[in-house]
């Protein structure tokens, strides 16, 4: 018996030792280096944990630029401020000469990380390149360019394009040294404070400071980006100290990091909306769509279910924008009225099973969604809420969004950034215009189409705002869409990590001041 006990203790002890090793290893290596190399200044490095996997560092393709800008590898000509208004970054200024012509002046002290200066000529090369590579940048593939001198260039677009400067803030518009970069997916040469030294696709990125940086000296010597796909593992990695900063933590996990002497929480509202597409081909009865919208407790979902990790929405854009929800008339949460509305429309529960029927057909709808952030939680809540007003909801969860394109749904839930560059037109045009790519519910309203056409050609910002408000209001009154809430993004870091701040865009995390003390 005694022997057994001793054996058990030994096993437990050795397990504990193995468990401790992971954390100590890193520190040991760090001290070894400083002993052998006799480096007196301590090397500053931190590890950044994220659930996002990076397939390629080439900023020009797809959405990959988000990562290279986020990790301080590349930069764009203009940058969005906290309310998503463009301000100069690599550019010094711009001038809108006429509807088609834009003059951009560059700062004259900018260098790529390899020491090469950034010239107007190289910027034009970049514009042509991402115009070709990225479908969102189509305007740049058809534009004409003129280089006036080393820092001045003229862009002539084929059609009037009011949001050109906003588009230049999109990370795909990163300026890289195309001549010097052999393998852009592995090692793009940008202008940011950090350069990638080792990149393993979908796993990790090792960064080192850019000694040629144009805007000060980066505070960190090294940074390690680590992809941890599972949220729970990410949370535990931050608790164990394996990572110093965790990006996009879920609301409920935030409760674990409330000790401000150990952790700093940085939270910001974004324009990533949880939205509903009503399929107008299958849910033809407007009363049903209206009743559904009335039965959704957006306030409760945001505050309680999502633990304040979302802000309730009315329209497609957050209140911080001039054309945000406060400008719109939305429908109020009122399940009692929703039930009455259904009754007036001829839906009544004759069979006594709690589900209303019309002409003997029970009212049953398919709610379809894909796994993304809190969508499943919202769907479960909607299912329970709609059951209360007598609607039976079948929830189907997919891994990708193909179901939306196929139109196989009554309500499709979607999670999308409605204004990634401070511009409302792109989202509205793709989503609400007849036959457009993202108009999954087949919404068609001639007036909305006409207003959208007008919006694309309007340069005056006040008139644009009025148009954006009118378009949203019309779509809401047709009950073609509903917007539940906007995701708030949370970044949690150890107390000694400084210079990181959540930004509504989700791509300006690393900067020259990021550091660890």
């Amino acid at each position, binding site marked *: 018996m005694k022997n057994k006990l001793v054996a058990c203790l030994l096993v437990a002890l050795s397990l504990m030792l193995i468990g401790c090793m992971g954390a100590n290893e890193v520190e040991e290596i760090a001290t070894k280096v400083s002993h052998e190399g006799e480096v007196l200044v301590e090397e500053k490095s931190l590890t950044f944990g994220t659930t996002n996997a990076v397939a390629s560092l080439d900023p020009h393709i797809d959405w990959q630029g988000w990562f290279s800008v986020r990790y301080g590898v590349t930069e764009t000509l203009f940058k969005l401020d906290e309310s998503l208004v463009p301000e100069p970054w690599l550019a010094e200024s711009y001038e809108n000469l006429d509807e088609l012509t834009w003059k951009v002046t560059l700062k004259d002290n900018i260098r790529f990380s390899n020491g090469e200066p950034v010239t107007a000529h190289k910027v034009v090369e970049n514009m042509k390149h991402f115009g070709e590579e990225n479908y969102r940048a189509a305007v740049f593939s058809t534009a004409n360019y003129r280089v006036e001198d080393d820092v001045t260039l003229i862009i002539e677009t084929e059609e009037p394009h009011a949001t050109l400067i906003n588009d230049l803030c999109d990370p795909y518009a990163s300026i890289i040294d195309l001549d010097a970069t052999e393998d852009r997916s592995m090692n793009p040469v940008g202008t940011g404070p950090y350069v990638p030294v080792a990149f393993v696709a979908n796993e990790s990125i090792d960064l080192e400071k850019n000694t040629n940086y144009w805007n000060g000296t980066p505070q960190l010597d090294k940074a390690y980006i680590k992809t941890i796909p599972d949220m729970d593992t990410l949370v535990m990695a931050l608790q164990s100290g394996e990572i110093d900063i965790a990006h996009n933590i879920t609301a409920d996990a935030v409760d674990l990091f409330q000790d401000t002497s150990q952790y700093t929480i940085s939270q910001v509202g974004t324009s990533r909306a949880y939205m509903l597409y009503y399929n107008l081909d299958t849910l033809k009865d407007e009363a049903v769509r209206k009743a559904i919208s009335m039965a959704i407790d957006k306030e*409760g979902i945001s505050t309680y279910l999502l633990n304040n990790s979302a802000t309730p929405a009315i329209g497609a854009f957050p209140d911080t924008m001039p054309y945000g929800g406060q400008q719109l008339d939305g429908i109020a949460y009122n399940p009692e009225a929703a039930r009455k509305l259904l009754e007036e429309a001829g839906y009544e529960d004759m069979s006594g099973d709690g589900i209303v029927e019309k002409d003997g057909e029970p009212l049953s709808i398919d709610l379809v969604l894909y796994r993304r952030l809190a969508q499943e939680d919202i769907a479960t809540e909607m299912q329970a809420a709609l059951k209360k007003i007598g609607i039976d909801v079948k929830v189907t969860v997919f891994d990708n969004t193909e179901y939306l394109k196929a139109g196989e749904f009554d309500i499709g839930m979607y999670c999308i950034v409605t204004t990634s560059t401070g511009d409302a037109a792109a989202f509205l045009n793709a989503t609400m215009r007849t036959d457009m790519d993202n108009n999954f519910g087949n919404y068609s309203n001639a007036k909305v189409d006409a207003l959208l056409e007008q919006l694309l050609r309007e340069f005056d910002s006040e008139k644009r705002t009025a148009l954006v408000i009118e378009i949203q209001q019309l779509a809401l009154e047709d009950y073609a869409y509903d917007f539940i809430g906007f995701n708030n993004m949370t970044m949690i870091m150890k107390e000694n990590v400084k210079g990181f701040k959540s930004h509504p865009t989700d791509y300006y995390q690393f900067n020259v001041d990021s550091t660890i003390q």
Partner: protein
Amino acid sequence: MDEVKILPMEEKKKRSLNFVKLRFYLLMVITIILIFISIVAPYMVPNDPYATDIRGRNLPPSQEFLFGTDSHGRCVFSRVLIGARTSISAALMLVIITFVIGTTIGIVCGYYGGWIDNLFMRIADILLAFPDIILGIAVAGIIGGGLFNAMLALGLTGWTQYARVARSNVLTMKEDTFIQAARLSGNSDLRLLFRHILPNIIGVLVVIATLQIGTMMMGIAGLSFLGLGVQVPQAEWGSMVNSGRSYLQIAPWISLFPGLVMMVTIIIFNLFGDALRDFLDPRINNSS
């Protein structure tokens, strides 16, 4: 001297016999109660297991919510009860179906032999070469989630156990004199198989089946845990454990109670299988 030695042996045998019987009846009663609970669960739940209350999320166990509430504010205790129905009835049904199919294939293969035997035994060999949960994941992954598909995935390999055992038993039995006699007196093959052979091998098969209940329950829960079993918001133990995974540090009761109940249930079914085997064991039973 001899007499003195023998007496305690007899005594021991008698005592162990009583113990085996007692254990069997006790576990049988517990098992029946369990199955009974799973059947009447909808009438026993203290709260609606599907009613969400977003203002009462992650509440710790209390008098109103015996096992606390989950991340949607649903009563965990009610969901565990309702989940019992899904878990236990699905496992029982699965075991019964695989038992019938597997046994039929087994005795037919054993009795007739030839190509039919070769065909089914090679299929069984192939299926047995895969770890069943991995095969289950693959199958459920291809044909999609849902309880029925998860059961199908598990049933695909489940029958092989019964087929193997039934076949080998039939092989040794079919040359027995009483079978020869029955055949000579003009019994049809069907009657031979089901009237004379099956009753003689059913005992060992029933024991396997009882032990399989726990395994199947775990299989279904495993697939549900991975999101390949039941769909939201249906209550099932495996998916409940999974849904509480993110809340282990905040609200451990969401995962703990379904897991605990599942563990106890599987242990009871396994013990019952054990007890049944001992009970049917001729070495113990015949001596009485």
